[in-house]
């Protein structure tokens, strides 16, 4: 699994960082998503998919 984050769309709601803090963080300045790892390990895939669905702005994509 590979994660893509569109930082032009992100509104910094933090749902991804709340759901999988091992994979997603937020920039301290503007709250925008920071990918800590773009290819999360298999055991995190389910949580990452949940985070993608929870994202309110549609900024995340799992490919």
């Amino acid at each position: 699994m590979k994660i893509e984050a569109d930082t032009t769309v992100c509104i910094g709601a933090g749902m991804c960082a709340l759901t999988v803090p091992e994979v997603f963080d937020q920039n301290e300045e503007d709250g925008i998503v920071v990918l800590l790892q773009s290819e999360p390990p298999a055991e995190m895939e389910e949580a990452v998919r949940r985070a993608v669905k929870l994202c309110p702005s549609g900024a995340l994509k799992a490919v």
Partner: protein
Amino acid sequence: MSDLTLTTERERPFDPPDTYAELRERGPVHRMRYADGHEGWLVTGYAAARTVLDDPRFSNRPELSHPPFAARARLAEEVRRERFAVPPGFFLRTDPPEHTRYRRLLAGQFTVRRMKQLEARILEITEERLDLMEAAGRPADLVDAFALPIPSLVICELLGVPYEERAAFQEDTKIMVSLGVEAEEALAAIGRVLTYLQGLIGRKREHPADDLLSGLITGGELTGDELTGVAFLLLIAGHETTANMLGLGTYALLADPAQLAALREDPSLIDNAVEELLRHLSIVHVGPVRSALEDVEIEGHLIRKGEAVTLHLPVINRDLSRFPGGDRLDITRPASGHLAFGHGVHQCLGQQLARSEMRVGFASLLRRLPGLRLAVPADEVPLRTDMAIYGVHRLPVTW
């Protein structure tokens, strides 16, 4: 055209009015006549609600809106006729790209990490309130002693609003969300709080401190009017939301001994309990409201340009196709994905703060007061059916 009149009166304190739950069974999207005669729509289905909130063809600009409540008709009319302008920094009622600029300036202040760091301070504030409540003795009004002061102290500290000046805005905030007041009274209350905040921002310009408003002032990106609007939005949103979740949430737990016992037995359920209480109680009676900027089809219904769409969040968050058994409170269910904070670009800016306040608030309350119970019969708790945000006016408790 359904002459469905929106009501906030409920048959049971924790369930949305039966009319809308029955309506949801008939489909996700319904025609509805608004308080000003406008023929628009009401959404009761989860998937349809997410679609509307995701779609930039639905606007949140106040001058395009129609009032779903009779109580808000006059106020909406004032806005439409441009006799009253929503302050420029009140960015909740703007669309992208204007909205994006404000959101980017503020989102860094409300990140998950920052809010988790704030939890130690929230805990101190919470413990102080519980000390004061215990010292004053039984019974106590949990709203007055706990549910309102905690979020109020936290948001005041965060923004840099002196808590001892709260008399200048707490009563007016109540008037603003009251459904029973005349438009003139609500507008006067808004005016008084804006004037207070203008003065406060002036003082901060002279003497900046280590707080959010001072940071925005010295950042220099916002005009004075924008600063006032932003401060107004954050102050009100920080008061009338978490306070009601703490009050109504405690009432819901005390009224459901099995759920209360489950949370007491396993405090690690707190994160999920918070999500489930948010979902199950959905304290915004009705809304948000959006307006179509062009023709849009939603689940087979053609929403015409200019038509208003109202989302009924309490009913939407119990859509049984999304939350099986959703009419029951169950603090162990997967509750995330609820729309209590909204969805789309306007999803609540302060949601991570609200989560931290509730996590700490509920957990401390149950830990400190193992014998906590209602001090009046459950059906005598006064309910906020007369306010735009649901909750309890008072919650008499003993322990």
